[in-house]
């Protein structure tokens, strides 16, 4: 069996896993992009709360149930879900790691992290829809994103523990300062490359598939 692909879609993406259908279809082995809880076909979690690392647990559970983790799996994380993909890679559950716009926003100081956590809690508290029991998908709580985690030392230490090959695919929507991208790639312990994909306003799966072909991580069209 070929190596599988597990895509963790962006948190809050109303189209959820379906945004990645083109890449899933193009992947030569088993592939899936599960709808995370609170998105598309998957109801909000019991209790209706979210934390960034939870996406790793949910996505891995879906991949295990689908039986695509047995031969090693390539894990792709988009934007803030890139952190969940990095956790899986650091934890030894990925044979390769793909980060799409996942290198992170500008670094925050500890003081900015704490201020951001408090701002996050206050914004949730002031939104009745976010505090109320989940009424549908996407869950109103997801509109508030997450408490910030982008502290340089923490993320750098995590990345220095990731030894599998890493491919960063950046689009014009990336929050990462362009001058920092190369330095952030150097934080990974294993080989890491950077490719760019065009964003045409729709699902970016096609552009990412093109970047993966250029990088040799995906066979050329028609050769799958």
């Amino acid at each position, binding site marked *: 069996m070929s190596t599988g692909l597990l895509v963790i879609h962006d948190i809050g993406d109303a189209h959820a896993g379906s945004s990645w259908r083109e890449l899933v279809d193009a992947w030569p082995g088993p592939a899936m992009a599960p709808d995370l809880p609170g998105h598309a076909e998957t109801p909000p979690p019991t209790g209706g709360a979210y934390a960034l*690392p939870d996406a790793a647990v949910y996505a891995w559970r879906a991949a295990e149930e689908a039986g695509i983790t047995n031969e090693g799996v390539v894990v792709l994380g988009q934007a803030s879900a890139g952190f969940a993909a990095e956790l899986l890679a650091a*934890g030894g559950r990925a044979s390769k790691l793909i980060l799409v716009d996942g290198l992170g926003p500008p670094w925050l100081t500890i003081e900015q992290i704490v201020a951001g956590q408090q701002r996050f809690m206050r914004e949730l508290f002031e939104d009745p829809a976010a505090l109320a029991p989940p009424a549908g998908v996407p869950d109103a709580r997801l509109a508030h994103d997450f408490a910030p985690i982008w502290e340089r030392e923490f993320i750098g230490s995590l990345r*220095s523990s990731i030894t599998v090959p890493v491919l960063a695919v950046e689009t014009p929507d990336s929050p990462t300062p362009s001058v920092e991208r190369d330095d952030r790639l150097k934080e990974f312990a294993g080989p890491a490359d950077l490719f760019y994909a065009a964003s045409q306003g729709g699902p970016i799966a096609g552009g990412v598939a093109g970047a993966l072909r250029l990088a040799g991580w995906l066979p050329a069209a028609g050769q799958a």
Partner: protein
Amino acid sequence: MLDLSEPDRATLLDLGRATIRLWEWGDPADPSVLMVHDVAQVCQHLGPPVTLIGHSFGGGLVLSVTSAFPELVDSAVNLDGLGPPPEMMIVQDHAASAAQWLNDADRIDREPAREYASLEEMAQKRKDINTRLPYEWCLHLATHGTKRGPNGGLTWKADPHMRLGSPGPFNDATLRAQYARTPRPVMALSGTEEDQWSFLQPEDRARRLAAFPDVEHHPVADAGHYIHVEQPDVTVALLERFLKR
């Protein structure tokens, strides 16, 4: 005794029971944000500003609420809840830590909670951990902190996800940064005796206390982690003085 006659009121809060978005067994989401919102909502219900008193994890929680929602809080009392020692929050091996976290999340989700045969067995287990806590208190905790499991035995009510935590930048510096953003008076009590879950060394405690804009600290003699259980009269006297200041 502490005078709680009108217009003062005291409310004891069972965490995780007052929330609108209930956090239940089986949910791997980080509970801390929900708990902060639980307490904030109770403050709103009681009529702010409210004095918050918290022990251990609850002590950290009341500081989080005070820092994030100062308009709801008059003052905060922290009973041996200034966080773990700095060295316990340092991740030496992120790969091992991530693997452990993922494995623990799997295990908690898939394995049923351990069931015990009797309250006495659970009380003794607690006594083995909290050796300074009188057995009668351990039995009290077991009596009020357990429920029936699916196989008829007894399980702790506390959600096992409380032990899981959530990977992120949480360390001594983030705690001190949070404490620095606490614009309300804080009283912190700590026991002078070595005890389970009282691992913060005096120099680390002093550094954290120094971060608060307005704090008083009282070491309580002949007490360990459960200050209010071991020295209730001293605790109440300090509370009375703090509340009247």
